[in-house]
């Protein structure tokens, strides 16, 4: 286990070195979420002003939803981008032939993603507090922990899934890294409640762990209480998706190993 820990640490160090070297890369992490926050923050301010304060909880939900969406998106990107970075730099074969195990690689990318997510969340929460008088911690209190936990898990599962596609199809599948999260965005009831969706779409939506996070978040804002079932259903679904994503990754890895794609990753 200590060897695994050492290798995971080495990989995290590798990702951190990138930031030390590249200011645009570090800036990019912060830039997009902050820009998005400005848009949704001012939309919320506008809704609040035209409703005379009666829709303040909806406005609050919008800012919160935007921050949560960013956590989900960044945790997925954390895994996928770390992975594809090694394809871009033609380093992937060096890693694939090293003692680094696949799960250690995924774990290091997930932990690195979590570090980035924590930093971004902190920045967004601070900006929303000072600019929109929105208190993320104060509003959600202890419910914040299970909600974020489920978001991170789902983001990692999505990240493993999109990385699997890249390992099998190489550069041709890169666009999916950015596209897949947006496929689940309208179905996750992020900015609106689940009840808004047509019944047939709700069935699909209920199969996504993210839906329970966003529904839970709205429940806390509306009532001050989150039904525990939201957490446990979300967690259960996450575990299923996590296992499925892992199996899918190993299957795609096997396919790439059989087709010769694995050794050519980064060279096409």
């Amino acid at each position, binding site marked *: 286990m200590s060897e695994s820990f050492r290798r995971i640490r080495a990989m995290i160090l590798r990702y951190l070195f990138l930031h030390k070297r590249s200011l645009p890369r570090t800036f990019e992490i912060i830039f997009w979420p902050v820009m998005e926050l400005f848009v949704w923050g001012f939309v919320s301010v506008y809704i609040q002003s035209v409703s005379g304060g009666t829709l303040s909880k909806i406005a609050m939900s919008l800012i919160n939803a935007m921050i949560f969406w960013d956590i989900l998106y960044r945790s997925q990107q954390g895994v996928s981008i770390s992975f594809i970075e090694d394809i871009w730099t033609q380093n992937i074969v060096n890693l694939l*032939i090293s003692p*680094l195990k696949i799960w250690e690689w995924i774990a290091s990318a997930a932990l690195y993603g979590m570090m980035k997510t924590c930093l971004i969340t902190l920045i967004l929460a601070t900006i929303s507090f000072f600019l929109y008088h929105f208190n993320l911690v104060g509003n959600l209190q202890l419910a914040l922990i299970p909600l974020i936990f489920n978001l991170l898990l789902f983001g990692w599962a999505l990240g493993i899934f999109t990385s699997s596609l890249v390992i099998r199809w190489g550069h041709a599948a890169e666009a999916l890294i950015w596209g897949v999260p947006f496929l689940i965005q309208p179905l996750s009831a992020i900015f609106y409640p689940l009840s808004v969706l047509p019944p047939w779409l709700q069935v699909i939506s209920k199969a996504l762990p993210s839906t329970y996070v966003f529904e839970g978040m709205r429940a806390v804002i509306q009532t001050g209480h989150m039904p525990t079932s939201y957490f446990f259903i979300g967690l259960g679904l996450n575990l299923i998706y996590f296992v499925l994503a892992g199996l899918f990754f190993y299957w795609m890895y096997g396919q790439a*190993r059989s087709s*010769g794609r694995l050794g050519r990753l980064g060279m096409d």
Partner: protein
Amino acid sequence: MIIRTDRYSATKKDSMDAPKLLCENHFMLIQPVPQDHASVIAKNLCKNYPGTKALDHLSFTLSQGEILGLLGPNGAGKTTAIHILLGLLTPTSGEVSVFGLSPLKNRQKISQRLNFSSAYVQLPSNLKVSENLLIFSKIYGVKKFKQKIDTLLELFDIADLKNRITGALSSGEKTRLNLCKALLNDPVVLLLDEPTASLDPEMADTVRKTLKKIQKEKNIGILYTSHNMPEVEEICDRVLFIHEGRTIAEGTPEAIMKNFETNTLEQVFIKIVRSGDLILGKKNV
């Protein structure tokens, strides 16, 4: 007339010193290495892609302390064979063992004692030379890694580039850095895919000499691919010519040149490329 070759008709009389001629036109040699001394054994390796046979019953061994040149034209199957040894590719059929283990099932165990460098695989360009080597030292669990990194950088004459960004290095410097990475874990077997492809003649010579020195000192088995035949003559103890995934000739460079009645391996290479199908019995004469 079809020239028929039978790769496995070698008799027990075959010895390391006397290559056995197997076919009528003396194109095929075999010089078996006792398998119990071999770090790498490939037996009847086949790899089929739709419409293509990348490897066709390729067999070879690599002993500890030996430099084996894996030669052939582009598309002959050299990289395919290396990828199978690295566990990056599943063979369609055949057996492969590295240190007695299957690379597909024991990649992690094997990787502790094996390493690889290729002109087509790079270290992250956005990291410093020292950072790249530090990360791989940690991944491989290298003890006294700082000392090890300094020694290797000195050995390949790039110690002054330690704090340089890898992307800013010349291709020759990158090649030497890749070799430093490949030697970090003191490998018992080293797979080198065209390691001097981007070096100028003087630097290529220095790198070859350095490699040869390390190989002798540490008794490393090296599988070496190159299109530079004078280099192969200089560095390899034994060579294996392959064409369309099949062995065409195997032996010491001297023995092969003698049997092909040429003075250089380059002439052998040209002969093999031009008449490879003939040798394999794919064309009628």
